[in-house]
């Protein structure tokens, strides 16, 4: 799974900490998601979708090995 959360975050001018606070997780969790070390739950993905005002598919993409 690949994602462009870092880009979406930059568009909204949010730091990892800001984003973490907005969706109720820790900064390290955002860091892990951005680094593709952790795939978030559907709930978290939908929270991000709501915040970025974009469908989940726009910033989460399946990679070849998925």
């Amino acid at each position: 799974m690949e994602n462009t959360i870092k880009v979406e975050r930059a568009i909204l001018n949010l730091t990892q900490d800001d984003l973490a606070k907005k969706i109720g997780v820790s900064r390290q969790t955002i860091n892990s998601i951005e680094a593709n070390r952790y795939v978030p739950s559907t709930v978290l993905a939908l929270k991000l979708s709501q915040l970025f005002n974009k469908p989940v598919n726009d910033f989460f993409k399946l990679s070849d090995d998925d």
Partner: protein
Amino acid sequence: MNKQKIMNCERNRLEKLTNFRLPQYFYKIGIAIGVITIIMMFVRAFAMEGDTEWLKHLLQKTLLIGMLLMSISRDKEEDELTIKLRMQSYAWAFITGVIYALVMPYVEFGVSNAVHNGGEVYKDLGDFQILIFMLMVQLMCYHTLKRYR
């Protein structure tokens, strides 16, 4: 109440039990209990005389309680990633605990007999030894996984 409702009720109860965590301050209480117990263990071993076997058992149980409190208390920033890491650490603790219980008696027996001829006889591990090992592995794994998340 029909069968479906009973099943849902049991599922919810089980889920609630699985997600149960003590408040975060219990972690500090657990550390305090653990430290005090270890100090008391040294005092009992080196400064107390007479039959203190009962105290040894009591301290062992207190240490287990302290570490259990540390294990099941909530994290400062509890979220779905830390929950996943906690579950992974419990899996690690369980698997290594079983391997430890199977292998360690033979290691103790082998080392004891290799060091001095006609050493200890073969004996299984006690519950305290296995439980303390599992709790230690769980806590170490959890904090290591958290550090590298």
